[in-house]
């Protein structure tokens, strides 16, 4: 169980830091954080695990995505040019 979680986690973390698309990186970050909370449950730290999901998985990636949406210009510009024709 621990090995499965840690394998998913490491793959998720690697994909987070290497993926080209920012939103996909956020998605993989979510996977990583949720699997870490699984490891906390294996370590009998249920409260930390749930707080991890609540705060880390619930709020932090949403904040990050919010930042991505607000600072990403590319998609919007592309769609504007495609529309102007």
């Amino acid at each position, binding site marked *: 169980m621990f090995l499965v979680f840690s394998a998913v986690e490491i793959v998720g973390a690697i994909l987070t830091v290497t993926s080209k698309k920012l939103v996909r990186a956020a998605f993989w970050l979510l996977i990583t954080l949720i699997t870490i909370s699984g490891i906390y449950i294996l370590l009998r730290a249920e409260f930390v695990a749930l707080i991890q999901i609540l705060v880390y998985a619930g709020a932090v990636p949403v904040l990050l995505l919010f930042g991505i949406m607000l600072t990403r*210009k590319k998609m919007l*510009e592309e769609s504007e040019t495609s*529309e102007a024709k």
Partner: protein
Amino acid sequence: MAEFWVNMGPQHPMTHGLWNLRIKVDGETIVDAEPIIGYLHRGVEKISEVREFQKVIVLTDRLCYVSSITWSHAYCLAVEELMGIEIPERGKYLRVISLEIQRIASHLMWLAAFGADIGLLTMLLYALRERELFLDLIEIMAGLRLNSNYTRVGGVRNDVPADFEKSCQRVIAHFLKKLDEYEDMMENSKTFLMRTQGIGKLSKEDAINWGVTGPNLRGSGADVDLRRTIPYEVYDQIDWEPAIEKDCDCYARSIVRMREMRESCKIVLDALKKMPPGPYRMKPPRRAEGEAFRATEDSRGEALFYVAADGDDRPYRVKIRSPIFCTLAAVPQMMRGHKVADVVSIMGSIDICVGEIDK
């Protein structure tokens, strides 16, 4: 955040018809707006030139499908002035009654659409329920419900049945009770006030300069109602007063329409009381020559018909001035600086009808 254009339309729940509003948004704030029309152009003005005077009424009925009698009435007035005829007194009263019933039905349609726009779908169902009653009245008068084809050059098509006054009174008594309920749901609701007050400001000067007319102009505080300033038919013999609000925002425009519905009820009842017996229609001449202007107060503003004829039995040229076409030009100015959600409030409050815009 980058600015980008969003197409609202031609297929969008906000549009109430086939047109396109492009808005340029910066996040949620509207930077610019640009109405694009022409999807529903049918060439009414051109088709009118090959039809006889009476037959054009069918087309003018379809200019605005929620307010058909007011449009054919405006056309008939213009043609009657062109021919130089004066219609019988009872015909005038019948016209006023039908116009006001149509006005209430049209305003109820606005109420329904406005409610649906700002997220109150229950209002849509309620207003359409009451609109059915007025369409029933129109059906009693004209035999048809939507494109009623009631007004004719020289009067109206037929007289009303004997018990029409009683059914009108019953419907209006029922409706006035319901109208109080609607005011509770709309005007007295805090959420509604949050959505409409201070949104879509259009000052009196701007409204006049852009050519905005009708309830939208009266919502900006200008005392312009063609029923009173250039009285046609028998509006000068009936006692009523126009609804004017000074707030210039969506809330004022909606209040104006709600009060106009009450006034229209008063007009209908008063006209039914004062209606004299006698003929309701006269035979107009087939041919005419010259040109005539006639402006009337449509449910949405000033509907103007210019009809020119060269002695033939059909018009040489018909020109239509539709009120919402002019109002639409003022829309970008009303929208700038507001949020995306205010688009629907503003567009709902000016009561758009694409049929008459594109003609």
